[in-house]
């Protein structure tokens, strides 16, 4: 079911901790053999500064501040290489990391206007608002679960909102699933990412799939 509606899938890996942004430049990554030499040469650099570094590689965009390290791609063939890059970087350096976020974003195209309305109405019944409002619509929905259903500390946060990123559809929704892990002092972000990668991908797909099943969109 999801295969039919899903148009764009993107991934953002986020580490929260203490970082020295200027250290993570493309040529350093190439020097360490974490990326290809040509990847470094072709990097599109936007900002290199002591407090923020931002550039795009073929496999994704990298943005680093003093307390936030993120890697993003909307090319699903690069999901695993991006994960490997983060593992490579954090194996090479011993930066203190307090949290890991695996963000999955699904941009889905809904077939028509009626189903689009039904999608919002099912998630948040709009009759509840019709005492004083005439034609209420759901604009954004955010769901939080403060405890995880596995052995780890962390949370799940899901945000649903309209998506204008699908060029072939005017009835697009984006479902942003944040799979968040709190790390203890001795926890390795590399271990966490490696061990939980498959589960995280599956969880995000299951959540999205079940949403569309609830609305009975096929």
């Amino acid at each position, binding site marked *: 079911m999801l295969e039919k509606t899903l148009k764009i899938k993107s991934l953002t890996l986020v580490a929260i901790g203490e970082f020295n942004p200027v250290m993570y430049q493309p040529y350093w990554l190439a020097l360490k053999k974490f990326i290809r030499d040509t990847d470094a040469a072709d990097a599109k650099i936007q900002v290199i500064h002591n407090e923020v570094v931002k550039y795009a590689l073929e496999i994704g965009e990298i943005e680093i501040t*003093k307390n936030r390290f993120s890697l993003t791609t909307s090319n*699903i063939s690069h999901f695993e290489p991006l994960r490997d890059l983060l593992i490579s970087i954090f*194996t090479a350096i011993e930066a203190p990391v307090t949290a890991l976020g695996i963000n999955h974003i699904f941009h889905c195209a809904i077939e028509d206007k009626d189903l689009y309305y039904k999608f919002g109405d099912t998630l948040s019944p709009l009759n509840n608002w019709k005492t004083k409002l005439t034609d209420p619509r759901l604009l954004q929905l955010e769901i939080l679960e403060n405890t995880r259903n596995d052995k780890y500390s962390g949370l799940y946060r899901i945000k649903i909102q309209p998506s204008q990123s699908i*060029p072939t559809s005017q009835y697009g929704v984006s479902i942003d699933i944040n799979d968040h892990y709190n790390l203890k002092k001795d926890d390795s972000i590399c271990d966490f990412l490696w061990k939980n990668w498959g589960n995280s991908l599956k969880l995000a797909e299951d959540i999205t799939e079940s949403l569309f099943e609830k609305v009975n969109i096929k």
Partner: protein
Amino acid sequence: MDLTTSNLTAGTNDNFVGTIDENSYSDKAFSLINGDIKQWKEQQISLENSGRLVEKADIKNPLPDFSLPKFAGSLVDYLKNYFFDAQKWYGQVTNIGKETFTAKLQDLSNSTTDEIGEFEIKEIPIDDFELFKIGATFYWSVGYEMKNSQISKRSFFRFQRLPNWDTHAIDRASDRADDLNSSLNWD
């Protein structure tokens, strides 16, 4: 528009949600490019003091910000370039011939039994050639790429680059064994 500012206030750990219009992002990006971080921070403090930024209610358990990067826009506008209807495999080189090599392939899109594939050596990206040997692992995917509003069939081939983290893993296992050993009561 909601804005969690923890990714903007570099060097601080504040978690604030508030409303700032899109122009503020442009201003922010512009000031960053000019290296004027200090001025931007002062603006944020001013906004906080003026009440335009509202502290989150749950102070005891502030939520870290994992939202997508927002402040300077996207360099390659990544949502306009994407890959879809793709099938992905994880391969391991099993045999190297004169012009071709064979690999064991694990389907990452649909977990089925492993397959065997034969590839031409000339398909290997030049920069990945140093990694090409028996046992080397790679990612291979085929699908459709949307790039600059143009859809085309595309295949990606990339050898896996992971550090030799065996040493780290061994160290960690050793540390855990020491911890366990010291916690055991041998009486």
